[in-house]
């Protein structure tokens, strides 16, 4: 029973970190590929490398300090951040599933990056813009990965496992990126975002509750029940909004 509870918790943790990291890394890779294609790979790779080094320094500074933080306060803060972040993802995925939001952000990000490169005239300035664009893309998306790994990993007391899941996502996205390069929008992004949203909101509820000293019935296994509840609610919202949109379209036509 205890083994089942521990393994379900670990599976949900690894799944959440892997998928969330993969989504963020796909976005970062899109920007780097766009910069590399239009301006050459040197500035794109330099910007990415400096961003990764900066992120590494940040983790080295912040990571050890988290261990000394009171666990209840940490879990409440983590729970609140994950609830907000998860609900944002889930909301976006639900709206996309109903056609109320464009499905592929990656194509838009690619075009936008290429356009901003084309507007730049001198060669030296183009190199600097390429470096900054790659740096910002990798740093900001990477920072979100770092927050996900640190918050989920420390709260679940499996920081090493969370870091390994993120590293696995980096390897998978990196290999896929090298193979498909421009076909990044073929990744079923919305299904991934919906799954990640459900997992983050479930973790947010669970850790937030523990931070508020709630004793969850069944301990860690209640996390699985939360995942089911949020998945069903999301599906119901998609079904309801699709029906409403179809009814509205029938009235206006």
């Amino acid at each position, binding site marked *: 029973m205890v083994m089942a509870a521990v393994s379900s918790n670990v599976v949900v943790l690894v799944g959440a970190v892997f998928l969330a990291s993969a989504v963020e890394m796909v976005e970062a890779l899109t920007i780097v590929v766009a910069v590399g294609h239009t301006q050459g790979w040197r500035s794109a790779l330099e910007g990415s490398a400096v961003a990764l080094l900066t992120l590494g320094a940040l983790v080295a500074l912040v990571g050890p300090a988290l261990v000394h933080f009171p666990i209840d306060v940490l879990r409440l803060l983590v729970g609140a951040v994950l609830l907000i972040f998860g609900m944002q993802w889930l909301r976006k995925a*639900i709206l996309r599933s109903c056609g109320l939001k464009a499905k592929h952000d990656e194509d838009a990000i690619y075009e936008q990056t290429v356009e901003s490169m084309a507007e730049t005239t001198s060669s030296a300035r183009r190199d600097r813009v390429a470096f900054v664009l790659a740096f910002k893309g990798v740093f900001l998306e990477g920072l979100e990965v770092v927050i996900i790994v640190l918050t989920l990993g420390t709260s679940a007391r499996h920081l090493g496992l969370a870091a390994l899941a993120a590293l696995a996502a980096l390897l998978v996205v990196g290999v896929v990126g090298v193979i498909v390069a421009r076909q990044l929008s073929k990744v079923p992004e919305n299904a991934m975002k919906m799954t990640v949203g459900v997992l983050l909101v479930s973790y947010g509820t669970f850790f937030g509750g523990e931070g508020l000293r709630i004793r969850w019935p069944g301990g860690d296994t209640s996390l699985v029940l939360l995942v089911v509840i949020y998945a069903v609610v999301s599906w119901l919202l998609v079904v309801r909004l699709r029906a409403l949109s179809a009814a509205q379209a029938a009235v206006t036509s």
Partner: protein
Amino acid sequence: MKASTSWAVRLVRGFARFWWDFLIGDTPELFAAVLVIIGVVSLVSLVGHENALAVVLLPALSVLALGGSVWRAWRASRRR
């Protein structure tokens, strides 16, 4: 000295902007809802010691917040 100050100011502004976009962005209602949810559930759990009620309230209020935000976005799209 001036260049380093403006660099530091830009860094702080950029950091603040990142957290603003990360937590609030275009969904301030979700940020506000989570603060309210934590406030209500902490009253029930830490002050009232009603564990069963808190277990039900936390996910229920989160579902309501999500549903409300999605509904708000749907209504906004209808107005456009």
